[in-house]
């Protein structure tokens, strides 16, 4: 049998109109799974310092312009020395969270060294996530996120990025979304190149990240005041603060601004 519906013959054009894809029940375009993000999380920002890395993300889940959920944690510890920061679609983020939990469970299987020599390292977690992200985009069904994997491996800071396209890169300062535009320039004032990491201590890096979060709260209309910050330090291990707020904002100068040019009162 000839399986091409166009050669089957058909009722007259007067009755049914021109023969079309719809009559053949054939889609006029291949199946598409690409979606759009619904509930979203904004930037994740991060930087290296001389003894580890810092990563931060706020607590907001936006629904379009509606600031719908205000208590979403977007930083996920994996093992003892890795933190994954996730921006983009929150349902896909929760899916990734479940994948990471499975990864940890499976690493534990038949492995009596899972909590030391053979524990999950940042580079393993990153390679896994980058593979998942690329596979999904290749199936035309991407996970609508940009991720940053931060951690300490072999006593050295680790920082790498992957997004919904499966694109990956690394840098001593990294940010997703709005942060890539607004925060990265601020972070680079402190750490511009790999050689600057050695000169930057934890305090300086923390101050820089806090300052960048403040600027993002000033300028990103989909950001919230509350945020989390994780420090993965080579000596102290994971220090995870989930109760931070943007502080020391300057609004006072607003009182001197009158009109939009020449107006004086």
């Amino acid at each position, binding site marked *: 049998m000839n399986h091409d519906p166009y050669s089957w013959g058909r009722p007259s054009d007067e009755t049914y109109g021109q023969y079309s894809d719809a009559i053949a029940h054939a889609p006029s375009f291949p199946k598409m799974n690409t*979606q759009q993000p619904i509930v979203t999380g904004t930037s994740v920002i991060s930087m290296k310092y001389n003894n580890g890395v810092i990563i931060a993300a706020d607590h907001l889940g936006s*629904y379009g312009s509606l600031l719908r959920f205000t208590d979403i944690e977007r930083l996920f510890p994996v093992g003892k020395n890795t933190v994954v920061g996730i921006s983009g679609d929150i*349902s896909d983020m929760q899916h990734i969270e479940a994948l990471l939990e499975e990864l940890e469970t499976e690493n534990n299987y038949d492995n009596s060294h899972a909590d030391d020599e053979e524990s999950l390292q940042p580079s393993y977690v990153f390679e896994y996530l980058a593979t998942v992200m690329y596979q999904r985009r290749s199936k035309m069904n991407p996970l609508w996120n940009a991720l940053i994997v931060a951690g300490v491996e072999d006593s050295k800071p680790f920082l790498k990025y992957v997004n919904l396209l499966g694109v990956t890169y690394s840098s001593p300062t990294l940010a997703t979304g709005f942060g890539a535009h607004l925060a990265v320039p601020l972070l680079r004032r402190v750490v511009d190149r790999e050689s600057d990491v050695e000169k930057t201590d934890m305090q300086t890096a923390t101050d820089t990240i806090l300052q960048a979060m403040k600027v993002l709260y000033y300028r990103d209309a989909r950001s919230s005041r509350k945020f989390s910050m994780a420090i993965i330090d080579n000596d102290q291990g994971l220090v995870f603060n989930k109760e931070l707020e943007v502080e020391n904002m300057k609004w006072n100068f607003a009182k001197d601004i009158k009109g939009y040019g020449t107006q004086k009162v």
Partner: protein
Amino acid sequence: MNGIQVDINHLKKGEVSLGTSIMAVTFDGGVILGADSRTTTGAYIANRVTDKLTRIDDKIWCCRSGSAADTQAVADIVQYHLELYTSQYGTPSIETAAAVFKTLTYENKDALSAGIIVAGYDDKKKKGEVYSIPLGGSVHKQKYAIAGSGSAFIYGYCDKNYRENMNKEETVEFVKHSLSQAIKWDGSSGGVIRLVILTESGVERLIFYPDEYENL
């Protein structure tokens, strides 16, 4: 349309939808679910006495918003899953019910328009729980949740007036006032206000008519 060229997108456009006001609130003795009763196809009210509060398990209920067909289908499938679960492992937690809802809406996000609130009373933990599952299929545990087109108008009211550990009467008033405002400002919400109260002692239904709630 000539009888053969049936386009699913055409169907979706004319779909019966629950352009809704729904909410669920935890309180010291359990949880209260509330909803309006309007179902529309475009501007036409297809049903003015709809029941959008749906039983999944004895003390796990949900509020449905979005496509009526989609949410009914999803609720029926979840009910089936939980029946099976109950027969094998005993009463499911509210979180498990929410997880099954999530699996269905997340895996089929391209095909579904369903915004669901899952709420229940946990007899083991002796408390009410609320999970919000918006369009994409994410899950959010909340003290209280609002959803549907009418909810946009009451974010401020609910944020200001919700208190933790209210008693039953206070919570009923809170839900009634909130939905009254949502209905007042949302053309896609209306009719009666239906409540379901889930507590230790069981399930209780309340209904409020326009004459009662319009002039609160």
